[in-house]
């Protein structure tokens, strides 16, 4: 369990918002093929920006 925690900490820096936000961005891109390509790409970037904002607003561990 400690090893998993160490890996998670190494990859995501202890953030919960970052992996969750990234998963939302990827799933949105995967499940929205009907969108205009530019809108789809822009939506992905917008969600990553929001993820950065959410990760920054998190409490410092």
């Amino acid at each position: 369990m400690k090893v998993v925690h160490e890996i998670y900490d190494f990859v995501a820096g202890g953030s919960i918002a970052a992996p969750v936000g990234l998963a939302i961005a990827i799933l949105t891109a995967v499940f929205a093929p009907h969108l205009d390509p530019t809108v789809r790409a822009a939506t992905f970037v917008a969600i990553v920006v929001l993820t950065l904002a959410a990760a920054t607003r998190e409490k410092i561990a």
Partner: protein
Amino acid sequence: MNGWLLGGTTFLASAVEMVEAATIVLAVGITQGWRTALTGAAWAFAALAVIIVAFGPVLARQGAITWLELIVGPFMILFGITWLRKAIWRAAGRKAMHDEQAIFDKEVAMLRAARDKRVGFATSFQGVFVEGLEVAVIVVTFAATRPALLGWSIWGAVAAALIVIAAAIALRAPFARVPENAIKAVVGVMLLSLGTLWTGEGLGLQWWAGDATLFWFVAIYAASATLLTFVERKPVAA
């Protein structure tokens, strides 16, 4: 994709991590002798080289393929967010700046108390290995997505490590004045931008300016980081 861009990113990432490693190597060198300090550092560099040599060329041989971009890209985004949010917190005053002098003083006190050369060796090895591991992972992941530019990313990382360690030994003082936080912010923006580009390619997204969309990302994330720094800034007490 420009080799200078990838090489520059690994150079800056390696430089900032090696500033932290150099503080530890320096503390070992001054308290327990340069032979112990440099032997520990050399073994750590050898271990990092094994990681890069073992995984880099293997991934590079696969060619830049979609599924690799889909694995590597999200990792880069997470690394980028981690680097960038720490830089934002520090710039906004929510987290203390990295104080190399304080870390150096603490390490020297610990090593003087220990006296055992094995502690010095282990401290030097661990300092360089832990700080360098993230850079090694970045170099390897760059190899997976842009195989032709593997040499650029390796040489960027190696050049920075050699310059910083050599300078630290020559100066015999920790780098207290290096703008570590600004460099970390630049690396964070670059990792986030490259990660976005590669994840999008893996997902089949069509970037509006091809590879050049990377510069859009750099602008968007740099502007976002600047805005978030202002938002996060602690109010000054009257």
